[in-house]
């Protein structure tokens, strides 16, 4: 009996020491995984995931605190990519964080704008130009469609406009087989 306890204790001490040494020797600094998750996120910085920006959400996912289905702008596609990267199961978009919408950009009605600069302060990507008591306008190419500028506007002059397809952005559709009615079938 004593022997057994001795043998097991000896083993535990040796292995424990080895592991303790390894833990110090192979300490991991930083978390390169965050970058990889961040690269998948759409960078709208909209905060719909309940984190203040895409990077914090990426950090939360890496720490295992957040689910991968909290990003409505990324949509199903984004969730699928995250699931692939992290080896987690695919989940459909969580409803409490919003719904997937077609890509839109903010447009300021320049007649109504009073030049209060509130939207400029709200824009996470500096896509609104203007100055106090001057008209503001949105740089459409840089607008991520996060809608964060909508609530602060005191005169409700900002609207979201869905982007329409143009010749340049048009994509070839997935091929479908056309069915041709034949005479034999009635």
């Amino acid at each position: 009996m004593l022997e057994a306890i001795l043998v097991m204790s000896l083993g535990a001490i040796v292995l424990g020491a080895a592991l303790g040494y390894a833990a110090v020797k192979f300490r991991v600094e930083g978390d390169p995984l965050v970058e990889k998750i961040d690269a998948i996120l759409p960078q709208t910085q909209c905060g719909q995931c309940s984190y203040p920006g895409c990077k914090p959400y990426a950090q939360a996912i890496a720490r295992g605190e957040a689910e991968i289905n909290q990003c409505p702008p990324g949509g199903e596609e984004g969730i699928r990519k995250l699931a692939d990267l992290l080896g987690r199961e695919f989940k459909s978009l969580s409803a409490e964080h919003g719904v997937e919408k077609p890509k839109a950009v903010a447009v300021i009605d320049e007649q109504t704008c009073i030049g209060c600069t509130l939207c400029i302060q709200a824009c996470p990507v500096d896509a609104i130009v203007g100055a106090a008591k001057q008209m503001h306008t949105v740089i459409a190419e840089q607008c991520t469609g996060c809608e964060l500028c909508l609530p602060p506007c005191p005169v409700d002059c900002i609207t979201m406009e869905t982007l329409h397809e143009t010749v340049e952005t048009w994509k070839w559709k997935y091929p479908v087989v056309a069915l041709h009615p034949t005479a034999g079938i009635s």
Partner: protein
Amino acid sequence: MTGYFFVVLGAVLVNNVVFVRILGLCPFMGVSKKLETALGMGAATTFVLTMACGSSFVIDRWLLQPNGLEYLRTLSFIVTIAAIVQLTELVIQKVSPLLHQVLGIYLPLITTNCAVLGVPLLNVTLKYNFVESLLFGFGSAVGFSLALILFATLRERLEGADVPVHFRGTAIAMITAGLISLAFMGFAGLDKYK
């Protein structure tokens, strides 16, 4: 010498740990979705299994048997394996954080991988010497990696296949695994030429 060769060959093909002995199915199904993860898992398991076979032989032969403590075999083997797995996990986390994240829960689960415990126990049953134990462990691990890699390449292609809805995912994977298993049965009898 040929004896050693057949120990390895037998472990890799004839008695493939996954397809013939049907051991270690949990990581086999879990991390075979992509070739990269399969390669990583294969490498990690090879390291762990070879180390486990070596150290368990030492523990069994020079610690347990002289003291008549054979009844502690399973317990001490598990502890040893757990320690090696922890070590491997630390190393992988340092060397390849992405692989660490991708392997996820399956990496610590190598501890409870029945293949990893089964092979050292088989070593004792088969009364292999130290070199044979190491080779048997290594061969089994290579067999495990082979199974994983073969299956991962198939699953990558399966992803693009027109699978009937009800068979999609794990169901078709199981069927595929069964078919490969049948194929591996064909290696039986290879050791007749020994």
